[in-house]
Every structure is written in structure tokens, then in C-alpha cells.
């Protein structure tokens, strides 16, 4: 690792101020950033740790919306997120227990790894990403692999998930990394169904609109039977070809519909 200083602010205001310094970067759970630093793929001069900021931790539910603060760990969401069972189950299945005890929702959303789980939940739920300066709809937030609408120094302070009637996330695990080889999040709301796909596309997390239409008309696994996603823009690597991933999108969607509760 290159050398850097670490600061541990105790309020969002102080963290934002510290991030204003040249080459400063936010550190949340560190489960992605620390390996990146070890590979010398990042060279911050200051790391601004968010783990000592109490106002960035915890979750609450009101008016049918679950708000999860930015530095809340996956373990906390798994344990306390029972009002949105599909989301709690997703959190409970990220990585392994030790990763879940450190990794946070804000870090996952901000990183927007093309194989990460939370981006699918946020997009699939039509969530709102709250930052220190504004509110961003998930449809605008995720802008392709590792790319988001966040500006330099902007902090994800919370994510607000409208709680659906039913939802489920199905992940086909890449066995070595435990990330999604393909993951599909399906959520049924009174005004329609949303389907978000992660792990599959070179464009990162995205919605599958044909499946959304079919499932809005008939929320049953059979409804997506005849549908297929084009393999053109799918990720291809030693774990699976583009065609294999495209096929898995359909399979995981059906399983998610069947499992939704």
C-alpha cells in the first residue's frame, strides 16, 4: 500500500469537510477499498473513515419506506431488516459473515461493482439514494460498471427503499468470489413489477423491461417463459460465456418470482 493519513470524523459535516482535501477518499467497510489499496490501484493522500459516524448507521421504517443509513453493515440489514424480507435475505447472503460485519450499503452502492448485490436491490426497488447534497433516483444513479452519479467528495448518507408487496433476489454465485455470476432482483408493487439484473451485463446493473411488462400482467414464473435477453452485451469470462449468462437471467428471474414473499 502507498502511505496515506487516516482521519476519523464523527459527523457527516466533518467528513464532507475532510473529503474536500486534495486526493481524499471515503473509507467505509473497506471490504473493497482495502484490497484495492493493497494492489496499489488507488493512491489517496487521506482516507476519511465513515465508521465512527453514528448518524450514518442504522435503519428505520416509516410510511412503507425502509431507510438504511449509508454506513450500515450488511450484517445489520440482515438482522434488523425484517420489514423488507427480500432485502434482508439479500444482505444475509453477501460474501461471508466477516465481510458482512464490515461491508456497508453505502460502499456497495457507491462502488457499483457490476457483480454486486445491493445495486440490484436499489434499482429493482426504485430506491432513492440520499447524499449529503441531494436525492437521486436509482434509475439515474447507476451509470454503468463502477460508475455512478456521485460527484467528487459526495457521500451516500442513506438509501430509501419503498417496501414492495413481494420481492426476492436470486443469485447464481460465482463460487470463488461469492459475488453474483448473475443475480436478479424482482419486486412487485401495486403499480407494477420491477426486475433488475446484476452480474450479467457489460453495462452493469440494469432493468429488464420485457420481463417487467410480462410480470406486471401476470406475476408468475411462466410469464417470462418465452422471453429471452440478447447475449450481445453480456459479460463473458472463464466462469461463463455471454450466452450462458443471458440464459441464467431468465432462469434466475423465474426463481425469484417463485420465491417472492
Amino acid at each position, binding site marked *: 500500500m502507498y502511505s496515506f493519513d*487516516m482521519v476519523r470524523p464523527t459527523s457527516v459535516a466533518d467528513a464532507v469537510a475532510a473529503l474536500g482535501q486534495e486526493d481524499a477518499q471515503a473509507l467505509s467497510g*473497506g471490504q473493497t477499498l*482495502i484490497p484495492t489499496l493493497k494492489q496499489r490501484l488507488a493512491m489517496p493522500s487521506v*482516507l476519511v473513515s465513515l465508521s*465512527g459516524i453514528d448518524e450514518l448507521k442504522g435503519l428505520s421504517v416509516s410510511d412503507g419506506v425502509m431507510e438504511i443509513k449509508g454506513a450500515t453493515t450488511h450484517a445489520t440489514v440482515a438482522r434488523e431488516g425484517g420489514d423488507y424480507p427480500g432485502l434482508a435475505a439479500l444482505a444475509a447472503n453477501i460474501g461471508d*459473515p*466477516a465481510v458482512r460485519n464490515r461491508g456497508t450499503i453505502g460502499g456497495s452502492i457507491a462502488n457499483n461493482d457490476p457483480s454486486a448485490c445491493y445495486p440490484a436491490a436499489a434499482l429493482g426497488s426504485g430506491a432513492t439514494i440520499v447524499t449529503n447534497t441531494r436525492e437521486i433516483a436509482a434509475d439515474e444513479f447507476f451509470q454503468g460498471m463502477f460508475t455512478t452519479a456521485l460527484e467528487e467528495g459526495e457521500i451516500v448518507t442513506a438509501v430509501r427503499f419503498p417496501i414492495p408487496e413481494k420481492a426476492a433476489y436470486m443469485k447464481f454465485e460465482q463460487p470463488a468470489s461469492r459475488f453474483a455470476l448473475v443475480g436478479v432482483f424482482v419486486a412487485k408493487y401495486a403499480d407494477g413489477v420491477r426486475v433488475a439484473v446484476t452480474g450479467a451485463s457489460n453495462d452493469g446493473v440494469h432493468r429488464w423491461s420485457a420481463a417487467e411488462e410480462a410480470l406486471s400482467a401476470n406475476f408468475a414464473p411462466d410469464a417470462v417463459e418465452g422471453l429471452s435477453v440478447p447475449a450481445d452485451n453480456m459479460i463473458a469470462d472463464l466462469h461463463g460465456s455471454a450466452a450462458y449468462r443471458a440464459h441464467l437471467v431468465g432462469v434466475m428471474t423465474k426463481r425469484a418470482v417463485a420465491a417472492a414473499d
Partner: protein
Amino acid sequence: MTDVTMTVNGKPVTRSVRGNTLMTEFLREELRLTGTHVGCDTSQCGACVIHVNGADVKACTMFAAEAEGAEVTTIEGMANADGSLNVIQQAFQDHHGLQCGFCTPGMVMTAAALLRDNPRPTEHEIRDYLEGNICRCTGYHNIVKAIMAASGQDVSAIAAE
């Protein structure tokens, strides 16, 4: 350099650390507590698992400065007060839950976290919880057996090899 103060295995310690000092480096090189092993250094293998404020974490993927004020427990803090092996450690010995022993500190720390939250886990729950702990020697069966035994359960149903 910044000063960091934490409690490690019940004893308060203060040291001056760099921003990029990892918990593994802090424990092994500063405190000479070499029971916390480094297998991969990329948060894959779990040999470095310790408890920070009661939660199992990978010490290779946490900075020492972030443990300011924390209660830290390592494998060196697991034995009974009289120095004898605790119930989990003894079960690993009795059921041959280790061969070379490299993964064992992480296995014991992970098992302890599991049993605290779930005192009588099923075989499936044990295997699931050990997802982030890799063992090159045992093939896992005897580790699962040891954890079943440590939780006071019958181990005869678990495959012997």
C-alpha cells in the same frame, strides 16, 4: 502517525500507528500476537479472523486506526482462565479438526462467533457460516464435527471422510 488505544484480550494497549497499518500487522508485529495468521491477505481465506466489539472480522481487511476504543479478542484470548483449552479448542483437538493448524485460529474465532449467536447450529448452518474460512488440509468434515461437539450435539451423523 496517530495514537490508537484499544483493549486486546482484556488488556488496554496504546500504540502509534500509520494510517495504512492493518490489524494483522498491528497484532502480529506491534503486539507480537502471532496467533492471528495471514493466509491470503485478500480477505478470502479467514485465517486472520478476530473479534472486534464482539463481531467476527478479517483482520487483514481492517485498519488498526479504526479499532480506536474497541474491544478486540484474538485466538490468544480464547483459552480458559487457567490456560487450558476452551470448549471449542478442545473439541478441535478431540475431533481432529486440524492438521497443519494454519487455518485453525480463524476457524476457532469464526466458530465462537457462530455459537454465540446460534448455540445449537445444524450441520448446514455450520458449513454456511464457515463460507469465508478456507482449510487446505482437513476437508472440513472434522471441523464441522468439532463445532457440533463444542455445541453439545451428536456428531455421529457427520461423514467421517
